[in-house]
């Protein structure tokens, strides 16, 4: 075994120890897949995102005496989910743009969390601007290349109608402006961007140029999206490790998934 390999083995052993001791916490950033969890709503003449549904096949009964199991159905974009580049028209020609083509090491990586919860509490259309990012960097240092950036808004605590926050002029929820996504993708080289809202874009994101800038810019550059995240308040601004592996769906444009973070114990 080479010295590097020995070092890596020791590091994983240390990690195993830290997980047992609690020095490293495993934080679940996922909402429960539930029939009642909101999904994105498009004008009704378009096809819609399928809601999560579950049908019992048997439950230790006449349909199967010793076993219980379900069939479930949903969209690739139902619940806490991953967006692959091929989800958006800008990313349709990106190599390895479908979930089954993405290299597995892309699913594990460092994560920065930009806390916008105060702004989002005051303004439901709060915008993540380049200035917000630069202010964050002034405190926490430059966003490392190839890291995930998550926008914390505490939006995941909203329930019922307050989550989509649909009005007559469409949904209202926080998200990034085009210049912020440009900065993250092209200047910082991030791996992906995640939010607590139903999409990576603001509720009113269709009114930016380009419309839906997070989808357009991220996926056009082969980067990933995560949405409907929860518990972002349990993550440090930086230093945590994100585990976000979508299902291996052939030509899948996304997938519901269990998003976990390895977080060094606070204090």
């Amino acid at each position, binding site marked *: 075994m080479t010295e590097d390999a020995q070092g890596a083995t020791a590091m994983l052993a240390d990690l195993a120890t830290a997980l047992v001791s609690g020095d490293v916490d495993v934080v679940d950033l996922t909402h429960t897949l539930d*029939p*009642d*969890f*909101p999904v994105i*709503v498009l004008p*009704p*003449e378009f*096809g*819609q995102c399928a*809601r999560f*549904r*579950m*049908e*019992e096949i048997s439950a230790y009964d006449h349909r199967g005496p010793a076993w219980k199991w379900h069939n479930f159905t949903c969209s690739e974009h139902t619940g806490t989910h991953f967006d692959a580049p091929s989800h958006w028209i800008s990313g349709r020609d990106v190599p390895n743009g479908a979930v089954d083509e993405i290299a597995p090491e892309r699913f594990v990586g460092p994560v920065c969390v930009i806390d916008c919860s105060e702004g989002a509490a005051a303004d439901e259309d709060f915008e993540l601007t380049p200035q917000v990012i630069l202010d964050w960097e002034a405190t926490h240092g430059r966003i490392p290349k190839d890291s995930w950036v998550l926008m914390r808004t505490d939006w995941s605590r909203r329930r*019922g*109608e307050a*989550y*989509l926050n*649909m009005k007559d002029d469409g949904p209202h929820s926080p998200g990034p402006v085009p210049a912020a996504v440009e900065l993250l993708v092209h200047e910082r080289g991030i791996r992906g961007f995640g939010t607590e809202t139903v999409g990576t874009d603001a509720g009113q994101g269709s009114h930016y140029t380009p419309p839906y800038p997070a989808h357009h810019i991220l996926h056009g550059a082969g980067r990933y999206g995560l949405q409907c995240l929860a518990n972002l308040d349990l993550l440090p601004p930086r230093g945590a490790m994100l585990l976000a592996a979508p299902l291996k769906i052939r030509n899948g444009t996304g997938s519901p998934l269990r998003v976990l973070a390895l977080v060094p114990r606070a204090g």
Partner: protein
Amino acid sequence: MSVPIERPGKKNPQLRTPVPTLPPVPRSRAALGLTAAAAEGRFMLQHCGECGAVQYPPRDACGKCLSGDLRWQDTDPNGQVIAESTVRVSTAPYFRERGDWRIGTVRLAVGVSVMAYLHGDVEQAGPVRMTARLDRAGQGVLVAMPPRATPNMEDDKILREMTCDPRHRRVLITDARAPDALALAKAFLDAGATKVFMGESEQWRGHAERAALSALEGVEILPLDVTDTRSVQELAGQIGGKTDILVNNARFIRPGGLFARGDVTFARDEMEVNYFGLMRLAQVFGPAMAGRGADGVNNAVAWVNLLSVHALSNLPQIGPFAASQAAALSLSQALRAEVHGGGLRVMNVFSGPTEDAWHQPLPPPKVQPKALARAVISGLRGGLEEVAVGDVAKDMLARWREDPKVLEYELTRMGGGDA
């Protein structure tokens, strides 16, 4: 006048819910013509195609000329009671439980005498208007009515057994989001329903009618999504035992022919709501309601499906949707058989194009929500199984009856149809 039925009190939880019993079921094939007529609220008898003689009771050959050409035709309902009797003792549990029943012989103006139940307000040896009705077993019987309306006549004991009057009953309307939801809720409250439960899907997004519905006294909005098995089960767990009339108005429709999208996305949604939704509701509410078919004044009486008349014959412009309606219609027949023992009526209400966003570019006539609601209430009051609302549906039903294959040609090959 009839004695008005009092609004029932709360149920005594220590008493066993009476098990539904039925009047005699068997009928000859010929006699089922009367049942089919009663299902639509028509008074029909067989008329001989050769000699014109009106027949009673139903038979296979003319009683006068022996011709086999007997046709069910709408018949003059006027007549006069020539004999009457009150049945006080019966070996049939159904009649024993219901006490005295007034029956009589009525001489009809068309020249035949028929046996019929007599409404309480029919005068001795008085004139009557004959009606064909479905009894609790879903079979056609004749009920002689007073020639003119009398006070509270709908509360007559025999009539209440034949009908599904919403008065004093509790109603579940399955989709509060549907364009007809508000009109239906108001109509049921106006008809004296004690409670209208409204199923509301996806409470995480609002809808236009919510405030108006909530403002109606007697309306209770509860979560229900007919595409979600668990949601249907949970609601049945709460109100399955106090749903006396269920109106399934949940519907998914996207205009477009078979080749319009080239996928099954909308068609699947149509089947999920229109077919599987009905099935999910039926599997949990059906047995609960059928078990309460004899549960006092506010017993469970009716299941109402709102269907497109293109359940009968496909209209290519909405081909996949029409297929989902055909599936629902077929399932409604299975449901009818399953709940028969409980005396539950399954009423299908057929409409042509309805006044909503999905039929917006179509010219009138379109079925207005209020007209639909009126038809539902009057169908229940008549105890019907089959109702057509509006000119389009009535015409389509008549053409379908005349010759389904000809109608298919008209709708599919000649650019016909009204969608």
